[in-house]
């Protein structure tokens, strides 16, 4: 799209705004700033979308007198997301969070049409004057899980149920493996990618497979509690993903990485109210409260709890980073030298696994 078209875009947006009363005339009369959310799954998925919706509710609770939130759930990550995002802008939202990687190009596309509306895209890397990106350092949480798994595993063989070989998952696998090896240098991680974020029957079968190949603790990077339910049946251990899933597996659920988006959403909504919003790339973790570890299961011994808490504390005061050298890749090549820490820019594009990860690709 050439710059020449920009004026037409604005004209189109203006025309759209004029057509607004047909849909939500009432909304125009209100003084509150509207903030919109695009969700990938249903808000009751007890995973990714559930966590983002908790963040939205936190905005309502904190800024309810100044801000009004609306949301759309079950938005597919294809072109059909464009009209949904546009719809929120046309309904008068001043700030729109698009909460999955697959909305990246669509967000950029719609943002061109609405220069006065601010957009925030989760986990992506394309930005514009009115498009910011934000992400969570989930891998910091994976380091805690790896610490627990490395210490508690009897076989030293751990399972990792992944979706796709994208940086977020690669970081998770590597952080989990490195942390486990700190507790048990011989620990290995068997990795299965199921080529889907959500396929409960396949997640269940893959978990059984990992167990049969000797894994006694399995962690998941897919969105359903299916793996935990299998682990519960087998009397083994695992971790929740995105939210506390202990209700699905009270014995197997050692702890979970909870995604806490509330503080960030409140900060950004406040910036809109104050008129100080600016495009940025934010990548928060334990320190900012975006990554939180659920209460530990009774089955986690006190010494393991202490180790896990130490990792969290280290991240909070900046003294701990799992991606500190020496780090070797699967082929045994030294990738990070002794004492060096991988910079964030390298983490964001990582596509290799560390030594000790057994994977097909």
């Amino acid at each position, binding site marked *: 799209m050439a710059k020449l078209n920009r004026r037409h875009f604005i004209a189109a947006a203006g025309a759209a705004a004029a057509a607004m009363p047909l849909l939500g005339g009432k909304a125009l009369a209100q003084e509150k700033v509207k903030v919109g959310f695009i969700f990938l799954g249903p808000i*009751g998925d007890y995973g990714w979308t559930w966590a983002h919706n908790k963040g939205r509710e936190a905005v309502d609770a904190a800024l309810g007198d100044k801000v009004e939130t609306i949301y759309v759930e079950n938005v597919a990550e294809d072109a059909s997301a464009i009209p949904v995002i546009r719809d929120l802008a046309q309904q008068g939202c001043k700030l729109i969070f698009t909460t999955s990687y697959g909305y990246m190009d669509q967000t950029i596309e719609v943002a061109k049409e609405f220069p006065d509306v601010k957009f925030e895209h989760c986990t992506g890397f394309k930005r514009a004057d009115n498009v910011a990106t934000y992400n969570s350092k989930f891998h910091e949480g994976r380091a805690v899980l790896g610490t627990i798994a490395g210490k508690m595993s009897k076989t030293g063989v751990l399972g990792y149920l992944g979706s796709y070989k994208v940086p977020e998952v690669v970081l998770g696998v590597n952080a989990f493996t490195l942390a486990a090896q700190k507790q048990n240098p011989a620990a290995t991680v068997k990795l299965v990618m199921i080529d889907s974020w959500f396929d409960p029957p396949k997640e269940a*079968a893959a978990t059984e*497979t990992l167990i049969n190949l000797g894994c006694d603790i399995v962690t998941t990077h897919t969105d359903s509690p299916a793996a935990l339910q299998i682990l519960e049946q087998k009397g083994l251990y695992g971790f929740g993903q995105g939210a506390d899933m202990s209700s699905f597996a009270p014995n197997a659920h050692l702890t979970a990485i909870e995604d806490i988006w509330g503080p960030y959403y409140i900060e950004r909504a406040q910036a809109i109210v104050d008129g100080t919003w600016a495009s940025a790339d934010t990548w928060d973790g334990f320190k900012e409260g975006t990554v939180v570890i659920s209460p530990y299961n009774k089955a986690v011994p006190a010494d393991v709890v202490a180790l896990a808490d130490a990792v969290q504390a280290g991240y909070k005061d900046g003294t701990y980073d799992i991606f500190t050298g020496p780090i070797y890749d699967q082929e045994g090549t030294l990738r990070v030298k002794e004492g060096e820490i991988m910079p964030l820019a390298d983490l964001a594009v990582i596509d290799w696994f560390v030594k000790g990860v057994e994977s097909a690709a």
Partner: protein
Amino acid sequence: MSMDFIIAAIITVVGISTPILLAGLGELVVEKSGVLNLGVEGMMLLGAIGGFGGSVMASMYGLGPLAPWIGVLTGALAGMLGALLFGFFALTLNSNQVATGLALTIFGTGLSSLIGVSFVGRIIPQFGSIFPPELARDPILKLFFGYSPIVYFALVMVFAVGWFLRSTRAGLILRAVGENDLSAHSIGYSVVRVRYAAVAFGGAMAGIGGAYFSMVITPMWAERMTAGRGWIALALVVFAGWRAGRLLAGAYFFGVLMALELYAKAAGFSILPSQFWAAMPYLMTVVVLTLISMRDRVGLNAPACLGKPFLPAT
């Protein structure tokens, strides 16, 4: 490879295979009666939410230990209601079966999502073992005694359906209706009634297959949780050449294919891309379908009236 390893792998395969076996058995009977119901995926989803919802309700009313059994019944009922909807249009009103079946799948997907909204995140009581725990937990005997009751039900149904079609009078009539509806009609059988019964049975079986997902494999409700297994069940019927015994073998064969992909990945090697494994059941079905069609027409098992509307001269 140790004994334990093989036993665990077999148990995984049985788990993967059971729902497509159940739905496939139902569809087999439906197709034998000359009807092609492409709504299996929709009926499975209705069964999944029906079974899960039924269990939740039953345990809410304090029927704890009975809840899973009630869930199987409500799952079967939900699948059957979907099938009867199909029957009303395709059999009573003689609408196009292909289009009606597709509509049923779209309908079942939508309706299950809508109903399911209020069941997300709920938990349900589980089936206990029907065998003494010493047998069900024994490291070797669990291969025979360690499954959910639905698995045994599916196996019993393989023989029941095979026997019914081969050796009973009702089965003979059903096949006659599927082979030549007009002559079955002319000697006094109600083609529509027989087909209604077959379609209802198919819906109930698909419903139980769907309930197996939401109640046994992963006891929870999630939108579209059957993830396309209904279409595999359709392929399976063709792959099995419309025979119950081969359907059992075919279901376990498809299960082995799926398990192989996962084992290869977890063991750290991949011979072929995983997509190749995923496409295998469908490719092989096309191959088998072609082989069946190439063979002498006398030995053909495909019902002659499959998918064709019943239009008696009036």
